[in-house]
């Protein structure tokens, strides 16, 4: 009991320390602002992402509610998949409507980070698979890898389309 209490206190202290450091670091950085249109679009993106997660979780509950035996790993992996789908829905909508990054954010570095996270996660999952681990144990890595690479792909696609749009808008 004492060990549990100590662990909880430790977590709370850690969260407070991280919060304080983040607050102090934020003051030193330049403020990143979204303009009014971006805020509006991000609100819609959040709605889509949230609804995706809620509907997905409802389906999951119905699916698992009907079965007499619940496989914990399978349940966890399906939950991860739903959460990642919600993330991709939110990010995808926001990116498509030019509301994901602020004017001040460095697009290239963000792209690199997103791609790197995707590749690292997918790489980790593949390595674990090839070393004999069952696929269900590396489910989270797979989901995150696919999600971040999907976000990366949406960025690239948007960049290709945006270039054509910019040329058209200035000509007409």
């Amino acid at each position, binding site marked *: 009991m004492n060990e549990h209490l100590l662990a909880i206190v430790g977590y709370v202290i850690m969260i407070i320390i991280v919060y304080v450091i983040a607050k102090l670091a934020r003051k030193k950085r330049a403020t990143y*602002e979204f*303009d*009014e*249109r*971006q805020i*509006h679009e991000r609100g819609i993106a959040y709605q889509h992402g949230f609804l995706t997660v809620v509907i997905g979780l409802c389906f999951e509950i119905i699916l698992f509610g009907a079965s007499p035996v619940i496989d914990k790993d399978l349940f966890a992996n399906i939950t991860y998949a739903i959460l990642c789908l919600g993330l991709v829905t939110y990010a995808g909508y926001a990116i498509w409507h*030019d509301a994901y990054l602020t*004017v001040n954010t460095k697009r290239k570095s963000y792209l690199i980070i997103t791609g790197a996270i995707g590749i690292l996660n997918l790489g980790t999952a593949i390595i674990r698979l090839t070393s004999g681990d069952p696929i269900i144990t590396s489910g989270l890595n797979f989901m995150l890898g696919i999600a971040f690479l999907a976000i990366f792909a949406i960025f690239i696609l948007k960049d290709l389309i945006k270039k054509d*749009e*910019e040329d058209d*808008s*200035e000509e007409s």
Partner: protein
Amino acid sequence: MTVKNLRLKAARAALDMSQEDLAKACHVSRQTISAIEKGDYNPTINLCIEICRVLNKTLDDLFWES
């Protein structure tokens, strides 16, 4: 039904400003200016006022139906 804001585009072109230039002057993204000109987004009154200030026009000139 989207209605293009051609008056805004004309006023911007008269000052030889690109969408990017106008966006920076109004502290918004280029895509927001593009969306306003295409009629895909209705700006708030504050943004309308800011755009008018930068382009040296009135709200009637750029945004209100004549």
